[in-house]
């Protein structure tokens, strides 16, 4: 094994003084992994860990498609994980034989994004829906109706994201249109709904959401559950709407890209992230739910103080759309903002 490592190291990085066995390159969502865990893993295993961040699944996919990214770990969301398996961009590392596999909550095991659970171990899951400023609004929030067809109180005080993905998904949940519909008539209804909503919308922006919502610039904002929880824990007057039509969900999993130079360290890291102790630290940092077992007594966010992380309404995971369906989504979005 040692020889193999040395050979690989020499082959891969002639001129580099460090040996490959002491390295691990992460490419994960920006600021998504608890820094203290990186530090701990680095010390326990004598491994130099480098962390690069991305802010969209498309960025990650593009990089992996370009080949030889040099990364050992990536964390795609479920629909992109499916694409990466289908396109042969990530390794089968026998995830279902690891200890980490047994730690996965039954609900998130062997799902459509990785039926055999050989390619991935989930690390975080959450939802996207409407957040409200509780100082400005105390009306009902239990239906998407109040946000897509707002009355005078919320009119002009709503903000949506600047990208279609989750917004179109929420509109589809409200209308009962299936995700990734290839039916133009159904998608036309989605467009009509969003067009009618537009006159009540102040902004379509994914930046500075916390500032916009907590300052009262807008009263309702499409947002991520964990961000709401973090803002609320920091004292902002915000809350997350549990809409009975459902909320759009996502789950990020740790995977190993093809050609990862430090495969063994990557597997070690995945096992490391899935121990109850570390998973708890991770959840307390990231404020998104953990799909693997955690130590409940040490959880910072619980059903009592952070109900947003424990939805009691249906959670519908975003799907991998065909190009035809994706084109309809893009068409809805461009016509909405034309």
């Amino acid at each position, binding site marked *: 094994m040692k020889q193999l490592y040395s050979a690989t190291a020499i082959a891969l990085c002639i001129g580099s003084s460090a040996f490959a066995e002491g390295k691990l390159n992460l490419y994960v969502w920006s600021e998504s992994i608890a820094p203290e865990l990186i530090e701990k893993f680095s010390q326990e295993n004598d491994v130099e860990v480098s962390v690069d961040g991305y802010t969209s699944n498309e960025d990650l996919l593009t990089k992996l*498609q370009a080949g030889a990214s040099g990364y050992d770990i990536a964390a795609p969301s479920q629909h992109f994980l499916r*694409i990466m398996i289908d396109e042969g961009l990530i390794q089968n590392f026998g995830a279902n034989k690891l200890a980490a596999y047994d730690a996965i909550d039954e609900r998130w095991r062997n799902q459509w994004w990785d039926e055999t659970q050989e390619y991935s171990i989930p690390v975080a899951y959450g939802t996207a829906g409407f957040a409200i400023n509780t100082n400005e609004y105390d009306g009902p929030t239990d239906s998407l109706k109040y946000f897509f067809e707002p009355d005078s109180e919320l009119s002009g005080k709503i903000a949506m994201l600047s990208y279609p993905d989750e917004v179109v998904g929420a509109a589809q949940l409200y209308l009962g249109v299936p995700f990734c519909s290839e039916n133009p*008539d159904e998608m036309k209804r989605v467009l009509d709904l969003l067009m009618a909503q537009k006159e009540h919308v102040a902004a*379509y*922006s994914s*930046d500075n959401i916390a500032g916009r919502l907590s300052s*009262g610039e807008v009263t309702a904002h499409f947002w991520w559950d964990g961000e709401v929880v973090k803002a609320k824990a920091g004292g902002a007057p915000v809350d997350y709407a549990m809409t009975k039509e459902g909320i759009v969900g996502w789950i990020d999993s740790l995977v190993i890209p093809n050609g990862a130079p430090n495969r063994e360290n990557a597997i070690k890291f995945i096992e490391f992230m899935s121990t109850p102790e570390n998973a708890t630290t991770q959840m307390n940092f990231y404020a998104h739910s953990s799909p693997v077992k955690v130590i409940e007594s040490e959880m910072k966010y619980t059903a009592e103080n952070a109900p947003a992380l424990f939805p009691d309404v249906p959670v519908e995971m975003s799907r991998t759309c065909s190009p035809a369906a994706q084109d309809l989504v893009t068409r809805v979005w*461009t016509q909405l*903002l034309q």
Partner: protein
Amino acid sequence: MTDLSADNRTQGPKRKVNLPYLGLLPAWVIMGFALILPIFIIAAVSVSTRGAYGGFDWGVDFAGYRQIIFNEGWSGEMEFTPQYLLIILRTILLAGVTTGICLLLAVPVAYWIASQPGNRKSILVFLVTLPFWMSMILRVYAWMIILGRGGPLPRFLEIFGAQEGLSLMYNDGATLAAMVYTYIPLMVLPVFASIEKLDGTLIEAAHDLYGNRWTTLRRVILPLTAPGIVSGAILVFVPALGAVLEPILMGGGKQMMMGSLIQLQFGGGRNWPFGAAIAMTLLIVVMLVLIVIALRSAQKDREV
């Protein structure tokens, strides 16, 4: 100051005949790889076929360009779709208006700075460039605070009876304010440089020949400072065409600009060839404008 710059002009560069271009080779290589090659790659992507999940496959297919004008309608038939043209026109309009406002504000400012005594002049020029030392995003965020609810400007207006909780954000005016603020130094500096070179005796001569202030401005000052104004206008117009941040953060992103449209196609839209086709269209529009300006100024030179 006038004498000094005239000196520089007459001196000219010393010509060395031996190996005139070889010494520039590193610069050419860097230019070629960093500037020209990427443009060819974008051109190639714009005529490729799209990959199912983003990316592209090499090929020759003009679907990307066709899509700018014709698309499948909701009834499933190909039809004329003005939405992308609208976005392109709106972007050009926004960049044009930004350039116009910058020009109107920059010429008097530059003139005033140029008329100051030497020491103060350098300080003022330094102050104009000062905002460049800060990240552009931060400057836009500063404007969000100024115009946003509870910010200084709405507070000020509330004193004069504006409705409480007023916000001046999320409209075209807010977008323009941030755009003008961001790009105006690029206009002030070249205009200042050309006004500074202006020969004061020519203005005196214009007055001696009974030219009033307006005539002097129109017939003497403006033609002589035209090169500075034109390069300032180009420096503002071109980056303003690609503005993404201001329309989204200040304008609320309710109407798409070309920058966000391209971003959408390369990102969630997963249609790289179309995104590249729009980018190429933008490039061609800019090049046409620049060529027209260059031709016109060349013509003027010949007339003179």
